[in-house]
């Protein structure tokens, strides 16, 4: 009965603090912390659910959970409750992988390295907290804890318009999280839950009448949706991505967007079934809109990072669609897609960053024919693009396949919309590759060299996972499907 989750949380926190005070050696500390984190999570993942610390009974449905009293008043019971099921475990794995890749990728960051690596670790710490928290207040604290380091990462290490982008990011997500907080508190108090715990809310909120459930669901959907981001609340994303330093972009696309998806699944879809059911048309509409909008807009982008940012909107639209289908197949597809998108968009932002470092610009028309100069980088761009457009044997395919199969099953010929958009997605990636990788050399500085080892290693980690789960998706799917929610077979 080891409190494993808390141990990981504490070790991560200690590591983060240590990184802040490590001065010029911060990167070594950060690397060590990330490696240990990944090792811990990997153990957790591999041994799930039959591992030694298994104590599933404490919070029903969660393979590993801990609960300690925190703030107990006559009218509210707040606990420190953490736990994981298959869904959160997948996100935790994603956190660990992206953290390690980001730290390696940013190895030679020389502007206040201690602060930089500390903030990166703090972001991941917050995300980890969000994924394990099973108490409303704890969840919200971690949720907000993610915002602050990201704000500083964009605002201090970012590009020329970083102040604007950081502020926009902060205002958007903060407004959304206030609405989300109101929704969560209403969930607790309106449903008369006995405590702030997930299990208590789960027990009481499901019995609410349909109308209040719908209101609560829509409020929560807005709160989580801005993080997704859903059209039309998406414009913070391209700006934030373009201005953010590469490491922050990776975390932003890979993890922060997933917070919205995870939150929606955990705190809204599962908890408010009738509200979810009533809001389904809204979800479908928003999902289709995001899918189309993200893809079409990607086609017109000149900036590589903006292109990837808009393609994220497209992919997260598919995630939303899969969630909205209300089947365990769809839910699995959504979680799988989010993992896939986390890894692949991380990779795509890394290559965008490397293109910027190597050629001094990310403007697609201004740089071309880079393959002879930088074969390794070109290969990475290809792998990322192909994975993103859903090529089999890479991680995007099994995820998208599940999503579209579920869509076909639930909606019939509506599946033509996302399937047709696949062609547009292929078009903008292929067009980008045609212009950037192939053709005669354009805009290549004389001293351009292939990516340095650390950037290559950072990308290599993500490529490895892209291929691994693309060829053997069962490793991931079986873990997700063992979560006892939504009619999954259960542990």
């Amino acid at each position, binding site marked *: 009965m080891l409190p494993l989750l808390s141990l990981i949380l504490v070790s991560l926190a200690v590591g983060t603090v240590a990184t802040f005070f490590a001065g010029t050696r911060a990167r070594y500390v950060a690397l060590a912390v990330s490696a240990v984190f990944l090792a811990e999570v990997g153990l957790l993942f591999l041994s799930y659910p039959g591992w030694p610390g298994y104590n599933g009974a404490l919070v029903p449905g969660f393979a590993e959970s801990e609960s300690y009293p925190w703030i107990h008043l006559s009218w509210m019971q707040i606990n420190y409750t953490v736990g994981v099921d298959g869904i959160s475990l997948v996100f935790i794995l994603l956190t660990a992988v992206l953290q390690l890749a980001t730290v390696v990728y940013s190895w030679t960051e020389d502007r206040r390295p201690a602060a930089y690596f500390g903030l990166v670790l703090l972001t991941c710490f917050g995300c980890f907290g969000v994924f394990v928290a099973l108490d409303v207040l704890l969840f919200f604290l971690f949720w907000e804890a993610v915002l602050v380091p990201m704000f500083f990462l964009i605002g201090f290490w970012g590009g020329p318009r970083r102040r604007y982008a950081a502020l926009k990011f902060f205002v958007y997500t903060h407004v959304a999280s206030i609405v989300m907080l109101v929704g969560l508190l209403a969930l607790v108090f309106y449903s008369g839950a006995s405590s702030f715990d997930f299990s208590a809310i789960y027990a009481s909120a499901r019995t609410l009448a349909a109308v209040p459930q719908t209101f609560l669901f829509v409020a929560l959907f807005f709160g989580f949706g801005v993080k997704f981001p859903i059209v039309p609340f998406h414009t913070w994303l391209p700006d934030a991505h373009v201005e953010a330093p590469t490491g922050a972009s990776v975390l932003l696309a890979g993890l922060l967007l997933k917070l919205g998806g995870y939150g929606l699944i955990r705190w809204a879809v599962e908890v408010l079934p009738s509200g979810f059911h009533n809001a389904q048309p809204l979800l479908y509409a928003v999902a289709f809109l995001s899918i189309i909008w993200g893809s079409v807009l990607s086609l017109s982008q000149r900036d590589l990072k903006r292109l990837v940012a808009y393609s994220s909107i497209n992919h997260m639209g598919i995630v939303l669609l899969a969630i909205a289908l209300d089947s*365990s197949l769809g839910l699995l597809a959504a979680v799988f897609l989010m993992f896939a998108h986390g890894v692949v968009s991380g990779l795509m932002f890394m290559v965008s960053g490397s293109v910027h470092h190597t050629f001094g610009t990310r403007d697609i028309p201004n740089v071309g024919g880079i393959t002879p100069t930088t074969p390794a980088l070109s290969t990475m761009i290809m792998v990322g693009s192909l994975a993103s457009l859903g090529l089999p044997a890479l991680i995007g395919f099994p995820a998208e396949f599940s999503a579209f199969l579920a869509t076909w099953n639930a909606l019939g010929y509506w599946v033509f919309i996302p399937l047709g958009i*696949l062609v547009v997605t292929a078009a903008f990636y292929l067009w980008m590759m045609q212009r950037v990788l192939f053709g005669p050399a354009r805009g290549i500085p004389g001293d351009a060299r292939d990516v340095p080892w650390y950037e290559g290693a950072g990308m290599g980690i993500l490529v490895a996972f892209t291929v691994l789960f693309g060829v053997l998706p069962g490793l991931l799917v079986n873990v997700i*499907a063992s979560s006892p929610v939504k009619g999954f077979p259960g542990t």
Partner: protein
Amino acid sequence: MVVSFVVVGLAGTRMKRLEWGGWVAVAFSAAALLVGLLIGVGEMLSPGSYTDRQYTWLHLPPAPGAFPHGVSLVVGTLVDPISALMLIVVTVVGFLVMLYSIEYMHRDQGLPRYYSELSLFLAAMSGLVISDNLLEFFIFWELVGLCSYFLIGFYYERPAVASAAKEAFLVTRVGDVMFLLGVFVYFYYYATSGPAGGWAANGFVFTRGTAPFLAGSMGGSSPLLTVAGIMILGGAAGKSAQFPLHVWLPDAMVGPTTVSALIHAATMVAAGVYLLAVTSLFLGFTAVDQLAIVAVGGFTAFFAATMAVVHPDIKRVIAYSTISQLGYMVMAVGAGFAMVGLFHLFTHAFFKALLFLAAGSVIHALGTQDLFKMGGLRKPMRLTAACFAIGGLALAGIPPFAGFWSKDDVLSSVYSQLGAHPAYWPFFLLAFATVFLTGYYIFRAWFLAFSGETVRDPTLPHPHEPPWVMTVPMVVLSALAVASGLLIFVPSFQSLLLVGAGATGIPPTFSTTDLLLSSASVALAAAGILVAWSLWGNGRVVPTEIGFAESVRRLLLNRYYFKAGYDWIGAKGVYTVARAADFFDQFVIDGTIHGFERIFGSLSDRLRRIQSGFVSDYAAYIVAGLITVFVLLLLVAPYVVSRIGGG
């Protein structure tokens, strides 16, 4: 055994940066050839046997509706008569092309890339051939498409090449999306209305080896199955460059000639036909589907042949001819004779690869693909001229060359179905007319290149016969271009085709073809050759293409403006929409947000003015606030409390 074969193919991709890397790839493909031939001979000796091995790749959780027990996705290897036939094609042509590449490519940069991609292609293509369900088929289908993309883009520094590679990927992608939907529909159909037991109980396992469920449903009708069939047809049309997704294949000729021979003539483009054949044998098409398939195939056969008539580029002439021949195969499958289509695929693979390799030999010698610059090559390149002629005769369908037997089967099988559906008539006539065009265009190319006294463009290098690594594959393929059609008289090969046909789709007759029909088609082909000779023979060059008005010629050269139209849709249509959407995003959506920002900004700007800095003002605000609080507490609060009725 079969698994090891795929592994061997993959291992070929491992060799990197070796001087003799090409030979390693040749060795691997030779091993693959051995395995392929063993399997093929094994199938012939014991017809009807099949080996099916399956592994669960992924088990997906349930979804209400069609999949209450979840979905099991399997991968497996299936060796049966059909896949054995295809495996022979893939490995034979693969090995010969690999050998040919040693000399043909030796001056190029990036050879490790070339050989590893070609090896990967062979592995993926073999995987496609032996895959035992539609999903696995789709996975390998995409992988061969990827290899095709890479290999078309081999000379990626040239803008035209980069563009052609993108175009090939994108156009086939349209087909792939339809294919994927077709897979979904079949999944759904079998999960809901398939026979009980077997796979329905275990979630869903889709196997084509175990039971031809709907074999009897050929020509039946079911809306869902019709949709599925049309979607599969769309996928096949993308891969096999059928109308209206045909535009990419001629452009794909910018890749190395070896790649054109292997991927864009013999194997990958035939995968679409293979898909249709497999679907028709094991899943079945409805009557509507069949008509659609015949229509697409028949129309494409004629449509592509017309474009081949005027083209000056030797490779593109052969490419159009490939599209046209693929149309024949599609047509045969649509008419319900899948094995006839596959038989034509089998022979076509050899003589078309032969034509490409012979053309490659010319290009290798002269460095140009323009027919009007060549001429008189018969003397210095005697062997190549002979090989090209054999390929041309086979293509035109002159007995006893291979094309005669298979093309004749295609025509007679469609002819036998004319009574079933009057709408088949126009497409049959189109296909019949194509025979004439085929004879004409391929011999126009031969006369332009080989007849006459000397090379027309004096700046070109002096032509010479290539070394043995290039001639040996050509000679072997020439032999096959003769023999593969005669195989039909070998009983074990015949039974391979018959057994492969399963319950339905038995070819009408292989030996007693309708004499009238075949003599008519031979006469047409011979007439085409004669016309070509009279116009272009002995090195003559017709100044303007006689018989075609200049405008028609331009129409054909511009491919009926399909390419331009698609480019327009892509570049003008979609891209303009995308720009407009971007404008909307930046100025309307973001503009709204910035509008809010401005409103609050100006409000706060106004509010800021009261912060004057005068201490006395602040004191006044304090007093005013105090008074407000007093008023609220003493006057308003009691009133509100009394109204609410609280304590």
